[in-house]
């Protein structure tokens, strides 16, 4: 992460240079630009990071020309994102038009991403992205657990008096999993979500507590957490 600071400095200076068409000079810290004129007149600018491990080939821009601001921002954003993978040598190609960016990692063949958000998927495994099948398995297994939890949540069988979780918590309203651990006023100490789930099973539902590794407990947590996806983590909040 310490590269970020250096890299920020790099980027700022280099962007300034691009936009004002200054020639690359020997500053204290700077990114370099090279002019490479392929024989087929396809102009490119190449932006290299200070440590030399990241290279972005920007197609459609000539050396010495100011990059359009949009493109410059995209280059900067991409370079920032790539810098997080310090160990890897990455070359990226940004086409003249379109969203697809081609990446080559440690000399491996290029792969295409359309969104910078995909980078961890791709780069954490050294440039071998997860397959579609894998991604579908993840989603299906996750969904199965959540559906199990949904079923248990809406079933009064955990208790003995006919009360089910959804009676006080329709759509998992008012469960606030994002506030755990917290001091639970009914239990009088700081507890996790699963402790409160068990408390509810024992008290309002008059049932028997679940073992912490009971699949039903895990499924309940999965459903409750998925219902509150996107909420800020605020442990301790009342």
């Amino acid at each position, binding site marked *: 992460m310490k590269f970020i600071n250096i890299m920020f400095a790099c980027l700022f200076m280099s962007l300034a240079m691009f936009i004002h068409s200054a020639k690359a000079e020997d500053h204290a810290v700077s990114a370099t630009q090279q002019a490479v004129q392929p024989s087929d007149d396809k102009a490119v600018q190449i932006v290299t990071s200070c440590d030399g491990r990241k290279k972005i080939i920007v197609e459609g821009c000539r050396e010495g020309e100011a990059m359009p601001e949009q493109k410059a921002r995209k280059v900067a954003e991409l370079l920032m994102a790539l810098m997080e993978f310090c160990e890897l040598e990455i070359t990226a190609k940004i086409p003249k038009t379109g969203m697809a960016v081609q990446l080559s990692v440690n000399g491996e063949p290029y792969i295409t991403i359309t969104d910078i958000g995909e980078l961890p998927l791709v780069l954490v495994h050294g440039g071998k992205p997860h397959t579609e099948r894998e991604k579908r398995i993840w989603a299906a297994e996750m969904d199965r657990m959540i559906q199990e939890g949904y079923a248990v949540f809406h079933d009064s069988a955990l208790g003995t008096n006919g009360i089910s979780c959804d009676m006080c918590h329709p759509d998992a309203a008012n469960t606030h999993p994002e506030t755990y651990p917290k001091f639970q*006023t009914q239990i009088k100490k700081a507890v996790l979500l699963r402790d409160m789930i068990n408390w509810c099973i024992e008290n309002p539902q008059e049932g028997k507590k679940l073992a912490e590794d009971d699949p039903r407990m895990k499924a309940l947590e999965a459903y409750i957490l998925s219902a509150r996806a996107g909420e800020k983590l605020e442990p301790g909040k009342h």
Partner: protein
Amino acid sequence: MSTKKEGKHKQSLYPSSAGISRREFLKTALATGVLATGAGCAIRVSTSGAQQVEIKQGTNGFTIAYISDSHLLARGKEHRFAKALIKAVEDVNNLKPQPDFVLYGGDLAQLGLREELSLGKDIIAELKPKLYMMVGEHDWYFDMGEVWKEFFGKPTYSFDHKGVHFIVLNSVVVEDYWSEAKMTPMERMLFMAQLDNPKGRPFTVGEEQRKWLSDDLSAVSKDTPIVIFSHSPLYKYYKAWNFWTDDAEDVQKLLAPFKTVTVIHGHTHQVLTNKVGNIAFHGMLSTAWPWPYAPEGIPKLTMQMDRPDPFNQFDGMGWGIIDTLPNGHVNKTYKLWERNPMFVSHEKVSTGGGFVSGHSY
């Protein structure tokens, strides 16, 4: 306060004899000397728990009690839902003076089974004041209201009491979701019973009943105060939980010409206050369990009840008192168990001042 004397209980959908206007009532009452003395003096209403509210008992002002949403299971009188309904009945019976009548706001049973409705019928039979019944979806969708009608009569009717025209609706009518899917009665009921059912159909009053309502209202003068009892709110609060009446605007349009209209509803199991146009809406408590406030759509006028404590089997639950004022508007008191009562006056509703809106959780 008279108890079982006043009010013609209409069992029919046909508005053969309309409610008389307040003016006519007063004329008759004065002529026959029926009115109680002491009109216009302030008295302290003493209830079990020493309620501190003072109301002016005018010539036509009167009090009714409201119990609702008991969701009984057929597990005998020791089950906590049954204990809660018994508690409400006892509280009402201990009111001094007794209310003119009690309105039961629907969802007496949880799954609409004969045993559940029977148990409920037994418990509410202990109520001393006269009792009017209103149906909720939990009472209806197991057998489409067969047992309900057998025990409690027609679900839609109106009557007059001390110059106020009362209407009781079945506002939980939904489009047929069960025939094509060939659901069994229990499947149909369970589909309806799940509040957060993503496939649930919205409640309506429905065309047939709106026509009945229009006819019923046609014989009522615009000056007569109207109070409508409805299970669903007759406005739109939160669709995902069916805190909603889909044809609310149509119903409200029928009520718009009347000077004084109040809707008292159940189903939402929480303190709710709303005003749309000239109509005040009051959501009442459940005896069985509290619903949380919805993520959005809470009416601005609502002063929310504090979050209930699940350690306490009665917290956030209770019943209510509706004080009908001489001008036909209502004040309401939420008789929250374990807490001090919450009083909302008509004045507050009409001026709309000083309420905290938004999520309480």
